[in-house]
């Protein structure tokens, strides 16, 4: 992954985490907040390398 793309994704992850928390505070857990959470997790998995997550991974 190009370094600049990785930087973009890291910045995006910070923004998404903040946005997720704010939305969760105002709306609680609903479809919209969960979709944003999903987007956050997809970016998080993308950051280290595009292939993201081996099956032998941790979650929670």
């Amino acid at each position, binding site marked *: 992954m190009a370094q600049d793309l990785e930087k973009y994704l890291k*910045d995006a992850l910070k*923004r998404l985490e903040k946005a997720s928390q704010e939305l969760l505070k105002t709306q609680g857990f609903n479809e919209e907040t969960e979709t944003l959470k999903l987007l956050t997790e997809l970016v998080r998995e993308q950051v280290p390398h595009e292939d*993201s997550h*081996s099956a032998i991974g941790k979650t929670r």
Partner: protein
Amino acid sequence: MKILILQLARLGDIYLSRPAIQALKRANPQAQITLLTRPKFRAAASGLEAVHEIIELPTHDLFAPLVQDIMDVPAAHARLSEFIRELKTKNFDQIINLSFSPASSHLAHLLQPDGEKVRGYTRTPDGFLSIPDDMSAYFYAQVGPGKPNRYHLAEIFGTLCGVDLTEADWHAGKMENYVAPMKSPFIVCHIGASEEQKALSAEKWISTFGHFRSLNATPIVLIGSEAESAIADTIMSSSPTNSIVNLVGKTTLPQTMALLRQSVMLVGADSAPMHMASLTKTRCLNLSVGRVNFWETGPRAMGSWVLRANSEGDLPSDRVSRAMAAMVEKLRPELGIITVQEGAPSYSGLFPKEAEFHWKLTQAVYQGSDFPHPINDGFWQAHEQLVQINHFIMEQLQALQDGARLEEKAGFIDRGEEVIAAVAKLVPAWGPVIRWYQTEKIRIGPGNAQQVLNRTCEIQLLLQQVLDLYSEMKSIQAPGVESEAP
């Protein structure tokens, strides 16, 4: 029946999912199976005829608004919402999540909020991880580096799909018509791996091939990704040109699969080509180096061998080359080589005493086999601690049943859980039981206070039963005599 399979992990995991998907189709010939993958790994599903449709998670499109100078989170959010809406219109009857990742659990929940039709990780209505089935719970607690599981990941995927794998499910599907650059017999060697710690250095390959050449004249074809070209160039610069062909970065995944089918064997790390070889039934010499569990992700083709080493330094080149030559010449394996066997677990070989104990304890907890005798005194010391702390927690729970306020007792119960977690860290022999216990606690879904309390009490009693069993075992053991594994 319309089934959606989520497999958002890497190449190797997609190949390891293929037998389960093929078994699912075999068991449900009328089922319409859709597979969701990441675009980068879609090619690993090539030739998978059991699948009706492959859908790509549109990561490029989803992330585009995020990877620009003016980041547009709402636009990315809207794109993902639209993708989920479109998936929902397909009205899947069942979702099978083979990914075990946070993202996949949220996706499964968004597609099936009631969770009744989901196998694999999903989410509770309030957003916590939900582990609906026993195999996912087993995976959560016991699978991965440092854990005792000995079942192959392909078998685990099969169980998640509700099917038992048979030999017939291990096949490559529709193969690409690819002609190898040399006539058989030849050996395929995968010089890289998905993780650096699993791969061998160019120097190790050079010395291995040099030694192999003195034992056997079978030519070698190098394969790998473009990123591994530099390693291949180094190997080629030190090797006779007529004995090694370099195809690193020059074959597609389907071509690699076709190449493997034509070869006599594959040599390499635990990585995607080895999982392809399991499908083409090509024998493998798996060089299992570093923090990897070959019994979970190793080769499955009969006649395959595993050479296990903690690091490259522990894997002498002459040992690798002798094993290569012995496989080509169909000789018996040297002592210490692990061999693939039919059934599950899929490998024969000697394991350290502690690992054997962990596995037997895991089988006792999950499969009802006999509980093993402990192999050290630390186990008994931890047992005493666990008996006390479990008794303490059960007292708190009884007080709650008798009407005490949760606020008064929650802190005590939390401290008790912390002690139990600490015991698991300090005495790994108790790990299988304690991870089972902790996972069952996680599995308690949202409900009213009484329901949660009742289920918590049930789990605590199950833990007590295990502790009682060991109390009984201890009482009949002669004092001062250290026990041995049977």
